């Protein structure tokens, strides 16, 4: 690089500083987006497992039925630790309380209690006491910090709770704990607390523990919990068999969640995958942007390259010059992007981690990620500009001197132009603008690609939002009832008796007695059920929904396979697609499965597979007759009530009245609440994800417009002479301006057409990637499409207005002397 060429480079950059600034800004924005997402991905990916593993989660939980007293369980745990492959063991139990609301009555949100012996060293499934300490005294409880707002509690407060036996008791909140192994309460709409076994008598519950938490190594002798679930299942089954033989205990279930995976790991993985996909999409957009802008910049320099070559410059020297120009832009963009990327990730990562209920030990991204960002920031522009760079530097003098900003055209283009020209009644400026957009085909494709990518992402983001909203609406439509009343099944009460009690309440138009209970799938030949259930007893579990015979509250969900249940039929099930994917991957319509129901091993014929839609409840549907025939009992635990009016006031009044009526009749009510709580739990899971995706879409759109502005500036600059000629032959400034603006609008319109298919594909991918409990309906957001089309067309007009004005102000002399 000679001194003069370096001077030329600096002056060239100064001469087009607006475009260079625009280019650097646009590149920086995408790089900030990419780096922020990458850092967040790195931090979340590191912190979530770290936090989860810091609780030393159990590999498996062996559930006894009935539970044993604490001393006996301690002895069993001690013996279990001696078994091959078992690293540690601890006896525990858990159950759910109802919490009394301020105005009386049991609140809608339950409080799940984890119980351990007071001398339990809490090596397994431990937590951090942020206030107070373990073990809490008898009659005291430690509450998970995310539960305080949900349950409206304070430390030091005495709360009235209802135990599973229906007895009310008081517990004093003695401290605050942080347990990153639990999903946050606002997402689950469920609180979490920790008591010592000494508090069980306070609650009127027997001092019995029914769960043996174990940690299993992949091989005997190892002290690190294993990652292989099959090994854990085998070890847990062996231990359960040994316990049955040695102690004569009854084993109800073995719970083996996915090893080393937080209950929201799938949600986090999907979120991170989505984030990363956006990050890569951002980088791709950035690459297209770079290619577009630099291509324009190099093209504009072609006449000068011709002159330099005519006076003796070799291709390599020209290449050096423009390589340095690219490097200056890439390095400046990267330098600008580094700090904001770090700041944004440091603001963004805690939000994501809070959603997942995890505290970050450090918000610093792994150091290799900074290297990746710098390499991407400098390397990607260079890589994508390389073709243009080499091609431009190899431009021959002849090509350069002949260059007039138009591609060499073949017969097809000529015929296309001729055909356009024969169209009658078409304004010549419009015709010319339309032809002009095809003049530099590579740049046209890049510009269109850039805007189409941004458009596809925006529309896909909006469509996913629309899909989410449609899913909520669909759930509302399918949920034909207004109030859910959950009952503690302590005494057998018939469906008719239950419904009669509630039917008398004013504003109740219909009541149905349902059952929703947990089940597990038992492989053929295995006697003990093994589930994927997490300690919170929610994640990883499968529910069975028992449908009443004359139910009018369920509309059969869309069937993917087979048929819906027939009234009164027995021995048949319809499986929800989500349950099928997770627990019964190989099962199809016509197969037979074994389920553990109420401690019984039952056999069922699968007659249909339903699409995953919300509103109904469980993952497996059976008829009430089928349930009775299989288990010999009828045990409704859920009343679904339809109210005369569907406003929240009526629903709440009916819920309160139903709870009172049932309680007065001696029936233990777990909760009575409007169905809107379920919707809140669903929104708690999904809304943050959607907002993240939409935010990224908007950022990408901004980059798209920056690219268009730059492209149009290049188009105008390289056609300076042409505009001079137009002026010379009498074109007024307004015509030149209109021509340029119309070109921008045409590019925008073509990009909208091109974006259609990618938008459809991207929407389908996003719907597939998002960790929804139910499948989102595929639909394209019409408002999203309209907003994008309007924004892109007006944006294009605005983006081209400055270059258009610049073109229209050129004098003939300036234009013709332009090089």
């Amino acid at each position: 690089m000679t001194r003069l060429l370096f001077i030329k480079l600096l002056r060239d950059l100064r001469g087009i500083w607006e475009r260079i600034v625009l280019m650097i800004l646009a590149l920086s924005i995408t790089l900030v987006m990419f780096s922020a997402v990458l850092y967040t991905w790195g931090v979340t990916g590191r912190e979530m497992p770290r936090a989860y593993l810091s609780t030393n989660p159990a590999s498996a939980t062996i559930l006894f039925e009935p539970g044993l007293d604490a001393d006996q369980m301690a002895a069993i745990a001690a013996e279990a630790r001696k078994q091959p492959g078992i690293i540690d063991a601890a006896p525990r139990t858990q159950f759910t309380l109802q919490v009394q609301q301020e105005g009386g009555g049991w609140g809608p949100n339950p409080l799940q209690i984890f119980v351990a012996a007071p001398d339990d060293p809490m090596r397994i499934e431990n937590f951090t006491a942020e206030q107070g300490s373990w073990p809490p005294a008898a009659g005291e409880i430690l509450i998970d910090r995310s539960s305080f707002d949900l349950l409206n509690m304070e430390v030091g407060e005495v709360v009235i709770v209802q135990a599973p036996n229906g007895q009310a008791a008081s517990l004093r909140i003695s401290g605050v704990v942080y347990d990153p192994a639990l999903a946050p309460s606002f997402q689950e709409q469920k609180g979490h607390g920790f008591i010592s076994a000494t508090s069980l008598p306070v609650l009127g519950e027997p001092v019995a523990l029914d769960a043996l938490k174990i940690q299993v190594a992949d091989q005997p002798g190892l002290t690190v919990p294993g990652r292989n679930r099959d090994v854990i299942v085998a070890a847990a089954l062996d231990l359960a068999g040994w316990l049955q033989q040695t102690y004569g205990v009854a084993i109800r279930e073995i719970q083996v969640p996915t090893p080393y995976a937080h209950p929201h790991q799938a949600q986090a993985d999907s979120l991170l995958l989505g984030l990363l996909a956006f990050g890569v999409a951002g980088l791709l957009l950035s690459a297209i942007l770079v290619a577009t802008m630099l291509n324009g910049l190099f093209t504009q320099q072609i006449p000068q390259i011709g002159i330099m070559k005519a006076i003796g410059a070799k291709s390599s020297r020209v290449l050096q010059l423009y390589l340095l120009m690219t490097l200056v832009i890439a390095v400046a963009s990267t330098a600008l992007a580094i700090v904001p990327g770090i700041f944004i990730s440091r603001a963004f990562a805690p939000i994501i981690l809070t959603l997942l209920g995890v505290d970050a030990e450090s918000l610093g991204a792994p150091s290799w990620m900074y290297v990746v960002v710098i390499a991407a920031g400098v390397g990607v522009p260079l890589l994508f500009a390389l073709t243009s760079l080499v091609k431009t530097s190899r431009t021959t003098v002849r090509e350069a001197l002949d260059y007039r900003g138009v591609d060499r055209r073949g017969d097809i283009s000529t015929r296309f132009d001729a055909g356009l020209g024969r169209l009658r009644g078409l304004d010549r400026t419009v015709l010319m603008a339309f032809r002009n957009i095809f003049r530099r085909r590579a740049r046209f494709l890049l510009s269109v690609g850039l805007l189409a990518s941004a458009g596809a992402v925006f529309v896909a983001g909006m469509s996913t939002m629309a899909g989410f909203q449609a899913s909520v609406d669909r759930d509302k439509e399918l949920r034909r009832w207004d109030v859910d009343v959950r009952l503690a099944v302590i005494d057998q009460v018939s469906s008719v008796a239950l419904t009669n009690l509630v039917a008398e309440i004013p504003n109740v138009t219909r009541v149905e007695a349902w059952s929703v209970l947990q089940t597990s799938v038992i492989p053929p030949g295995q006697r003990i059920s093994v589930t994927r259930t997490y300690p919170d007893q929610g994640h990883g579990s499968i529910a069975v929904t028992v449908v009443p015979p004359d139910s009018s509250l369920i509309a059969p969900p869309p069937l993917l396979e087979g048929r819906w249940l027939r009234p009164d039929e027995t021995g048949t099930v319809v499986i929800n697609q989500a349950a099928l994917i997770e627990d019964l991957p190989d099962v199809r319509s016509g197969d037979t499965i074994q389920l553990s129901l109420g401690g019984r091993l039952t056999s069922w014929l699968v007659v249909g597979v339903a699409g995953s839609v919300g509103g109904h409840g469980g993952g497996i549907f059976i008829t009430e007759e089928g349930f009775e025939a299989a288990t010999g009992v009828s045990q409704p635990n859920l009343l679904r009530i339809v109210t005369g009016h569907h406003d929240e006031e009526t629903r709440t009044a009916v819920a309160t009245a139903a709870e009172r009526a049932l309680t007065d009749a001696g029936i233990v009510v777990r909760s009575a609440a409007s169905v809107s709580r379920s919707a809140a739990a669903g929104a708690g899971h999904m809304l943050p994800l959607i907002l993240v995706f939409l935010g990224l879409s908007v950022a990408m759109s901004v980059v798209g417009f920056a690219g268009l502005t730059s492209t149009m500036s290049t188009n105008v600059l390289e056609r300076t002479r042409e505009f001079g000629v137009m002026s010379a032959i009498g074109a007024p400034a307004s015509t030149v301006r209109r021509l340029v603006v119309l070109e921008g609008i045409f590019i925008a319109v073509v990009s909208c057409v091109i974006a259609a298919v990618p938008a459809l594909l991207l929407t389908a991918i996003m719907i597939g990637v998002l960790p929804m409990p139910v499948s989102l309906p595929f639909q394209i957001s019409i408002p999203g499409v309209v907003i994008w089309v309007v924004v892109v067309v007006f944006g294009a007009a605005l983006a081209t207005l400055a270059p258009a004005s610049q073109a229209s102000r050129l004098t003939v002399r300036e234009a013709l002397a332009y090089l």
Partner: protein
Amino acid sequence: MNAYHSLQKETKSQHGQQRSETNIDLHQVVKTYETPSGPFTALQDINLRIQAGEFVAVVGKSGSGKTTLLNLLAGIDRPTSGAISVDGTRLDSLSESQLAEWRGRTIGLVFQFFQLLPTLTVAENVMLPMDFAKVVPAAERQPRALALLERVGIRDQADKLPVTLSGGQQQRAAIARALANDPPILMADEPTGNLDEHTRTSVLELFANLNADGRTIIVVTHERDISRYTDGQVTLVDGRVADDARAETDTQKR
């Protein structure tokens, strides 16, 4: 001794020798372009020999092939068939990169629209070919550029950007740039086509002076009255040499 006089002395001493050796030969040169409507032959069977030190005007109507011929002579374009050699060097044997290097040392090019790099000053434009060719030692490049500008009469414009100069001044700057590496051959494509009458005359006189130094000069032009400056004219009609009036003119001049 000022830079101008040192330049004159150098030009006479160094290139008097080189000029006499640099002949240009074209043998059966054909140039055909592929166009959407089929092949178009711009030059057909051109046989031409230009002696060192000649001042030749290539004339003809628009589309007759004048600029194509000049481009072939300068190595800007390559013939479809036939051979072009300059001082024994076959241009078709050189790569693009070698052609650029050869051009930098051997040819000075002047264009109708001056083609000065807009972001470099006039002096820097003149120094740039010296940077490329590296014939002139680095320390001498600036004084030499200023001397060349002195010679073409725009020394006072040296530090200005081209856009601030008049058309005639820009063309003079372009001529100074063409002389940067003291090439034995100067080629100009319509160098006066964009100039007024007075400036045109002074530019042609400048070419005549440069030719008087012994430099070979080839000018593509429409000018009918250029003959009083040149050794002769080659007239092209439809891509063929219709008339080569150099011999007589040359004789008359001598």
